[in-house]
């Protein structure tokens, strides 16, 4: 399975209010409507943006998906999720804490 269907859903999760709503309220129902692998579903459930990028998903899309849908939408949280706990992204995170 390629990254394409995953990117399709993630793009909708950036721009389509109805899909965003459904992501919050009925995640499994939403996921069932897309031809995703179990691995891909899991990336979405766990907001695993690092795994998504390893899978080939466009980084602009992982960022957009995070900013629109994650429980903690702050870019610093995104960077932490992406880089792991030993994150070295102080400069950028610091900037965005203003």
């Amino acid at each position, binding site marked *: 399975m390629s990254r394409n269907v995953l990117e399709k859903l993630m793009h909708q999760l950036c721009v389509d209010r109805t899909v965003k709503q459904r992501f919050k309220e009925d995640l499994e129902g939403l996921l069932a409507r897309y031809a995703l692998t179990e691995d891909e579903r899991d990336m979405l459930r766990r907001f695993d943006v690092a795994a998504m990028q390893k899978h080939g998903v466009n980084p602009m899309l992982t960022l957009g998906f995070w900013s629109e849908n994650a429980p903690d939408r702050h870019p610093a949280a995104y960077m932490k999720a992406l880089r792991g706990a030993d994150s070295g992204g102080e400069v950028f995170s610091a*900037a965005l804490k203003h």
Partner: protein
Amino acid sequence: MGKIVGGFLVPHDPVMFVVPQAPAEDIRQRMWGAFEECAARLARLEASSVVIIGADHYFNFGTGCLPQYLIGTGDVDGPLDVLPGLKRQPIPASEALAGFIAEHGHANGFDWAVARAFTVDHAVAIPDRLIVDPVRRQGQSIGTIPVYLAAGVDPYIRMQRAIELGGAIRAAVEAAPADERVVVIGSGGISHWVGTAEMGRVNEDFDREIMGYACRGELSAMAALSDDYILEHGGNGAMEIRQWACAMGAMPGARGEVIDYAAVREWVTGLGFVQLFA
């Protein structure tokens, strides 16, 4: 018989709007000031239309249709991605010339995708708001023609093709029935990493290299940049130098001048402002 009377290469950094206070005071003032300087210089060019060349950020276009390049020929507004201090509003368009550029392209091997009612994202909206709107407020009537290149989402437009597309814009402007004075604005950050683990990195060496090509009008050096090289040294955001290449391609032989530059890690981007002289 229109004419390209000048060009600018500028960033469209949304982080400037999100955290305007993040960089040191002097940097902030210089960067906002560089946009003002572009506006002042645009005013002196007495343009009737500006072609603003941006790139989608996986926002306007989804997996169902990813155009290599697109032109807005009808109603324009934006940005789609509203920012603090950047509300969505109608953008004065230049429909007749935009339609002519599309038609001229279709007749000459440049198969423009066309947007007949288009909400641009920040890539076009920021230069329009910061550079063109101030000139409109001075009483000049300028229509914006939005152009989008595939620089954010693959398959990417080739550098060489972006340059050729600039040539197609120029040829169309010169063949157009109206006596338009046209300014091209290549809108894109230089080095920046967007959404990747390296986000926040800026590479001044890369930025100086690209600005050098722009100032010396080195189209062939731009065309020779491989995607691998750009991605390694400039980041995924630097794929947007395609927009610079396209604007340069519309002004072959033109020399340029750096208006200002700073590597602004707090705004995650190398911010370069170049004027191209017709």
